[in-house]
């Protein structure tokens, strides 16, 4: 599991009109080993997005000269390119999120956002591209789940999971070695699109953790402080990322 290097050797394009913001994002991603190109206006961004192959594109919606970033997404999809796109916007999230995603963007993040949230989402998008067809079985250390029979077992012992707990575990395993944020979990596992003001996700994780990790020497579900969670065999890699 190459946790620390999940972004390395991937090529990302950032289209964002504010040079300082774009610079911060690019520097942060480069520190994780990624190759990053930055572009500040819509037309050049369109040319770059369409003309080269990227692992993911980070796209601001409001670009100079009234250029709506979603045009780039539409152009990409019209050409049959499935490059994952993370749409950024200073607009409110509710309606714009839906519209952004409908235009073919794959994920949506409203400004201001935490850098860790950005990285987690880019990671998830990159991974999604690599595993287009879902495996029937997933295995991390001695934890095994079967997506067809919906059985989970750890060290040969069957785990008694509620349906939602199973989906939560499956999502964590699909993104094994990656950090997933609380909002990502709420969106993907519960299909709710709001920011809870309570520690609701933490409670569910701790219940799952009690079933999965309790009584085992090797803990698999780890909390990444201030960011989210990660299912991994090697928590030291998380520390190596400086998180």
């Amino acid at each position: 599991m190459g946790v620390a290097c999940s972004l390395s050797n991937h090529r990302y394009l950032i289209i964002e009109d504010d040079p300082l913001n774009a610079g911060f994002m690019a520097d942060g991603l480069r520190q994780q080993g990624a190759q990053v190109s930055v572009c500040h206006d819509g037309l050049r961004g369109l040319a770059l997005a369409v003309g080269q192959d990227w692992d993911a594109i980070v796209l601001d919606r409001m670009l100079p000269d009234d250029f709506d970033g979603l045009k780039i997404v539409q152009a990409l999809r019209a050409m049959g390119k499935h490059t994952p796109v993370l749409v950024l916007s200073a607009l409110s999230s509710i309606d714009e999120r839906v519209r952004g995603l409908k235009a073919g963007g794959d994920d949506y993040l409203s400004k201001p956002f935490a850098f860790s949230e950005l990285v987690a989402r880019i990671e998830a998008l990159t991974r999604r591209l690599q595993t287009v067809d879902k495996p029937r079985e997933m295995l991390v250390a001695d934890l095994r789940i079967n997506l067809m029979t919906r059985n989970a077992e750890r060290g040969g012992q069957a785990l008694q999971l509620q349906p939602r707990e199973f989906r939560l575990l499956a999502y964590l395993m699909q993104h094994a070695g990656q950090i997933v944020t609380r909002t990502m979990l709420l969106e993907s596992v519960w299909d709710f699109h709001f920011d809870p003001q309570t520690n609701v996700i933490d409670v569910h994780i701790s219940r799952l953790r009690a079933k999965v990790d309790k009584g085992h020497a090797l803990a698999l579900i780890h909390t990444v402080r201030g960011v989210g969670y990660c299912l991994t065999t090697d928590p030291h890699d998380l520390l190596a990322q400086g998180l």
Partner: protein
Amino acid sequence: MARVLPWRSLAFRLALSYGCMLVFTVAVVLAVFYLQIVGVLRSRLDQYATTQLKRLQDYAAMHGVSALHEQIDHLMRDGINTDTEIILLLTPEGHTIIGNADIVPARRLTQLGMRELTVQRMGRNVVGRVQAVLLPDGNYLVVGSDMRTQVSIEDLFARASSLVVLVALLMAVVGAISFRRLVDARALGIRSTMARVAAGDLAQRIPVQSQEKDEFALLSRDINSMLERLQQVMDGVRHVSNTIAHNLRTPMTRILLRLRAAEQAPEADQRATLRLVAEEVAELGVVFDKLLAIAEVESGALRQAFAAVDVAALLLELHELYEPVVQEEGGSMALQLPGDPSDGLHGPCVALGDTNLLASALANVVENAIKYGARDGVGPRIVLQARCLAAAGDAAACVEILVQDDGLGVAEADLAQLSQRFFRAQQQQPGTGLGLASVQAVVRLHGGQLQFRNTEPGFAVQILLPVALPPTHSAL
């Protein structure tokens, strides 16, 4: 303000065209009358000529042509119609043998039968309606009547008719002008008010009497109620932007002061300040996002994406999401959904709306119950309830959602303010003061109602949403 030119005025054009139509109708009626009268008069003259001629011809056949002279002489003197009748016995060249008129100049008659003929009678030229026949001795017998009476009746009729048409035309024009004045005056009241509103004075209203019920009064009332609503919205916007400015400036000032203080502080303190400031800025971002979300919901544009939402299923999912949180805090969360119809609750709870928005609003209410519903160190005991209320009286059928806790409730005086932006009943707890404001916005967007009440013990939030009609009903 631009004035309406007379011929551009709708009232003027309508009244004028209506008047012209009237004049046209009158003209047609008069023409029909005229033709009828002339026809009757003419046929009477013709009949007279025919009868007289027949009598004279019969007389001539019985007593010989020479006896005709005597008879004609008698007819001219008998005092019946002597002033209008024309009787002539003419030579083939047109000279009068006996009769009461002459053809001037004398000429051979080229046309026999019923015809009009100009003759000189008592020194005057008159047009006569006559019937002429050729007698066996080669002379012509001409009998008929002078048409003066008829011509004078026709003249009279023509003069009277043109007078009538003229008067009608005059009435049409005068009517059009006065109609225009009247409508213009009514419109002017509305237009001058609108001009003042356009200039920025939203408090202006069109003066309208309560007993007035005509089109202009109705239009004025509609405009007035629209202005009322506009003014409310504008006041609301002004109030909101003031509140927002205040609530965003306060944390910004705090951030600035912290940063300034940290400039001189030792490095360890600076690091702590940076962390604090980052948290504050993140919090500001949340506030911004919520404000924008509320504004977006209030704009109403999201209504286009409405679909049927199963409220019961939504509550089930929220219950599943939040129950562990409540249990962690030592409380409980019960769910009451309409089961089978026998227990008094009707059918499935389906509302028309946006699932995401309703979910976020309901989550907000539930999280409030978790935060404020605890009492005496015991965790919150929350009841989530949904049911369908059938239509009763004026109230349409609706879905009722009830979120109830057994906490300390809210001071009665604060109840009305709960859904105002930035109002916070419990200042010591962390929060943005935007949660219930966004719930209110979402409920309003759905055409529903949001109500709060203290239930002693506890606090209840009631949301009423209009029921979505089942597709089979709307397809009918």
